[in-house]
């Protein structure tokens, strides 16, 4: 898919506010690699998140910044023991019931099986997505207002007894 100047601007803006230190994008033959100033790749360089067309590759946790912004999900060290809440249908992912409302859950929130963790909007129709199990939110895997595919992992939950 060819990238237009406008697309590139949007990508840059998104990266600038997302709190990534390093970002790389590969679409076909085109590769973009961005690194923020001041971040030094030391002995263990932060791993870049590869943006692909497939559902978010969960094994590749975003690079850990030195001071993670509060809104940003904490990196997940391993998937072991975490349960995925997946998109029941393709649509737009929303973390809150309204633009100015607080999100349904944050990382660390304890949820009950029937608690709504997010909304998938399909043509103005809001579909609540429930946690499905009791647990603690370990990671939120999709960007607010982004298009998510059917079956894409939205939230990872650490089960609690």
């Amino acid at each position, binding site marked *: 898919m060819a990238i237009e100047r406008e697309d590139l601007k949007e990508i840059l803006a998104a990266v600038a506010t997302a709190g990534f230190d390093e970002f790389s994008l590969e679409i076909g033959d085109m590769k973009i690699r961005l690194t923020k100033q001041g971040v030094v790749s030391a002995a263990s360089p932060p791993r870049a998140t590869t943006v692909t067309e497939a559902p978010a590759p969960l094994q590749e946790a975003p690079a850990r910044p030195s001071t993670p912004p509060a809104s940003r999900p904490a990196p997940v060290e391993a998937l072991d023991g975490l349960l995925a809440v997946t998109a029941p249908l*393709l649509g737009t992912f929303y973390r809150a019931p309204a633009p100015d409302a607080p999100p349904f859950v944050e990382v660390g929130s304890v949820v009950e099986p029937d608690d709504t963790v997010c909304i998938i909007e399909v043509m103005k129709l809001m579909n609540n997505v429930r946690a499905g199990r009791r647990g603690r939110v370990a990671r939120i895997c999709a960007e607010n207002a982004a298009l998510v595919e*059917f079956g894409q992992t939205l939230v990872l939950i650490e089960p609690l007894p």
Partner: protein
Amino acid sequence: MKRVLVANRGEIAVRVIRACRALGLETVAVYSEADRGSLATQLADRALCIGPPRSSDSYLRIDTMVTAARGTGCDAVHPGYGFLAENAAFAEMCARSELTFVGPPTQVIRLMGDKIAARQFAAKLGVPVISGTEDALHSVEEASAVAAEVGYPVLLKAAAGGGGRGMRIVRARGELREAFERARAEAQAAFDDGRLYVERFVEEARHVEVQVLADEHGQCLHLGERDCSLQRRHQKLVEEAPSPVLPDALRRELLESAVTLAREAGYRSAGTIEFLVEPARGRYYFLEMNTRIQVEHPVTEMVTGVDLVTEQFRVAAGSRLSFDQDQVHVRGHAIETRVNAEAPDAGFRPSPGRITSWAAPEGEGLRVDTHCFEGYVVPPFYDSLLAKTIAFGANREEARSRLLAALERFTVEGIQTTIPFHRRVLAHSDFIESRIHTRWIEESFLGSGGRTS
């Protein structure tokens, strides 16, 4: 127009993506969980999973399709055939969402989708229709009265019809009541519309259809006809262009009727007008219009040199057709066979599964449209079409022998296919001499030595 959502699967999704590439359009493929890794998803610039295998939860979901198109920045949607291709509500929703629907205007889809309304429309224009009811039947008694008037056998058909569902041949008055109830129940279940109508049943008929193409600047033309008389249970198996049995005078009338119908309906895009031809009487009758690209469109492309899918995009973008009627020339002959994942020796039972070996024929005058490859798993959820094998020749015999030779070296392992069945049909003297009709497969071929071994 810059980016197209391909709202379909299988070989037609691949066909549309290839046309987009040739036009420099970006593509977004959609797939159900059963189609993960399909050829269309590999070829498209981007692919999105839209739902579980069941069509009603994926490929038939209007809201999902439109959301996928909008969410990926598409400005056009190509519906292919089947699924949402003739769904007026989908076309309307696309328009309302500022997406160009690559197809005809919504009102034409709606008009032609109602087979009774379409029949009335044709009759009003003086296009011949088979004698029968003007309106939907209200009762068995009404059906009985019409049947007595037009004479048995008669054919009961669904107003919302298609694919032979809700269709019943009635040979005598005593069979009418049961056939009526069954057809109504079938139509109700398949289309959520139990309305029926009745027509005289034409024996030993040929199915001949006309490819039309129209733009929004008043140009409406035909690209000749296709003969799709080789059917099994109303499903086309072999299609060819031109028809080997149409006398020139009849052909001219038929083509003219088709263009009149499309023009008066306000058609735009590629469409097909289906007729029944009764060679014994030298007559033809309007059956229905399909407001989409057809499975068998390649035979027309082979004999006219026109890329129909490309033209669909041009017209949808508001351009004029790049040629006029005088520039359309039918040259040579083309025959297509549909290779399906079915076991011809077991009543054409579906045969899904993993293709362990796939070697499609290549050669001069050959074209194979397919989404299959070695290792591909044919899912059990959708239609059984694997590939369309099309041969072109300077004349019918050259096309036929080329196709037969191609099918002899077409090898598929792991699943059963209709290839051996097609080899027998193409080698049969009735086919060679074009002495076939729409029920020839069931009444003659399968009943006699035609059974594949």
